[in-house]
């Protein structure tokens, strides 16, 4: 029997005997990264909105001071969580909660919590960038028809900003799928943790992690495809219908967009 055939036999054998463990790991990885990305996205949107509130001549002094303090605290959060590795944050939060507050988190909720606040820190700046990238004229036009800042954000700016940051958000999601592997240090039973167990049982590291590799790739690739499809759907059709022409009122003419 050649070396190659032994190798593939091993891969097949390991997968056949351990697939429920791989499946459970992949499931946990997806649950943690998906929930973490969604919560992080919401944190990011909230912080992004707060950090782009305009301050002008009409702002009262107490409001301006309150805003400055809030902004400073948010900036601290962003800088600290972007500036330290998630693996270290996981250790600090998990063991810190147990030591200081006697809270014994179960690993998966702890993992979701860590991924969420970590993603939130990144998303906060991504959302802020998205809001700033919306043309100033959009704000002016909304203000000129009497919309307040909140109405402008909700109806005009955020829909455009969110569309613009979707690619960056899917990026975050993909990064989270891969980076949840560091949560194995706090014994979260995600894919990497489960793979290590399987490898330990069989004493076959290369074969096991090749399978792990493939599973990670299938997950990230599927997720990017789905998100790309959502982007296209959100952009709407590039064609539109004209209702009635000057000569034939019942006519429907389809105009196909040129710039797409």
């Amino acid at each position, binding site marked *: 029997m050649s070396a190659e055939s032994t190798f593939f036999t091993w891969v097949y054998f390991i997968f056949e005997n351990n697939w429920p463990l791989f499946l459970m790991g992949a499931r946990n990885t997806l649950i943690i990264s998906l929930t973490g990305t969604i919560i992080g996205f919401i944190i990011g949107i909230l912080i992004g909105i707060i950090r782009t509130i305009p301050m*002008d*001549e*009409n702002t009262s002094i107490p409001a301006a001071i309150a805003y400055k303090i809030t902004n400073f605290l948010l900036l601290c959060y962003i800088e600290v969580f972007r500036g330290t590795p998630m693996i270290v944050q996981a250790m600090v939060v998990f063991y810190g909660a147990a030591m200081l507050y006697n809270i014994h988190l179960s690993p998966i909720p702890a993992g979701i919590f860590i991924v969420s606040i970590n993603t939130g820190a990144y998303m906060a700046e991504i959302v802020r960038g998205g809001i700033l990238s919306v*043309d100033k*004229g*959009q704000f*002016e*036009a*909304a*203000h*000129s*028809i*009497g*919309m*307040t800042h909140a*109405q402008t954000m909700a*109806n*005009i700016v955020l*829909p*455009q900003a969110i*569309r613009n940051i979707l690619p960056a958000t899917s990026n975050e999601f993909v990064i989270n799928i891969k980076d949840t592997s560091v949560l194995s240090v706090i014994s979260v039973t995600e894919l990497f943790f489960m793979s290590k167990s399987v490898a330990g049982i069989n004493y076959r590291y290369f074969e096991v992690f090749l399978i792990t590799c493939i599973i990670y790739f299938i997950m990230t690739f599927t997720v990017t495809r789905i998100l790309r499809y959502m982007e296209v759907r959100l952009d*709407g059709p*590039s064609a*539109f*219908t*004209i*209702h*009635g*022409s000057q000569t034939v009122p019942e006519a429907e003419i389809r*105009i196909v*967009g040129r*710039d797409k």
Partner: protein
Amino acid sequence: MDEIIKIKHLRKVFGANEVLKDINFSVSKGEVVCIIGASGSGKSTLLRCLNLLEYPTSGEILYHGQNILMHNMSNAVYRAKLGMVFQQFNLFNNLSVLDNCVVGQVKVLKRDAKSARKTAMDYLELVGMSQFIKAKPNQISGGQKQRVAIARALSMEPEALLFDEPTSALDPELVGEVLKVMKNLARSGLTMLVVTHEMGFAREVANRVVFMDSGVIVEDDVPEVIFNNPSNERTRVFLRRVLEE
């Protein structure tokens, strides 16, 4: 005459640059006032101050005799009474042509969606864009965008409409369709304040023409006087330069 807006001693300073110096000026109901002048003379800033897109450094803006800079009226409520049409159109890119004209009515004027749509359709019909209600702003031409922008402003049924160089960003062959709409509006008795480089439009449509130079109003008179017999040397120099082109 019923004065909608009256400005007293308005000043606007950007850093060390005094853009508007002691402006006194008023617009009455039904008037069409054109503001002309060289680039950088403060025309657009004056218009933007009127709508509080720029906050005046000092002075008063009286809206029906009430000073709106005194915080006794919210900026949003006041702004809704004055429509604005921008040089760069500024249509809401995420909304269709129809929704561009509906969103303000529903959110600001609290109209129900059905009557808002009807009002929007009426004004889109008026500017000749009712066939394009489903299009997004990036699917129509500049002239069409500006006509939608006019319909959006009209849908709010403002007391006056401010135009900030509405044709300056358009290709020459598209200027006509927008000017035609504006002429019709002027004839219908709408109060309009138009910053423009279109001297033909100012001469034909305006009740009054205001000439501005380096942050002051140099001359404010009927078009016949401004164009045929200006009293100020600066007006004469400007007009000679513009009309020669």
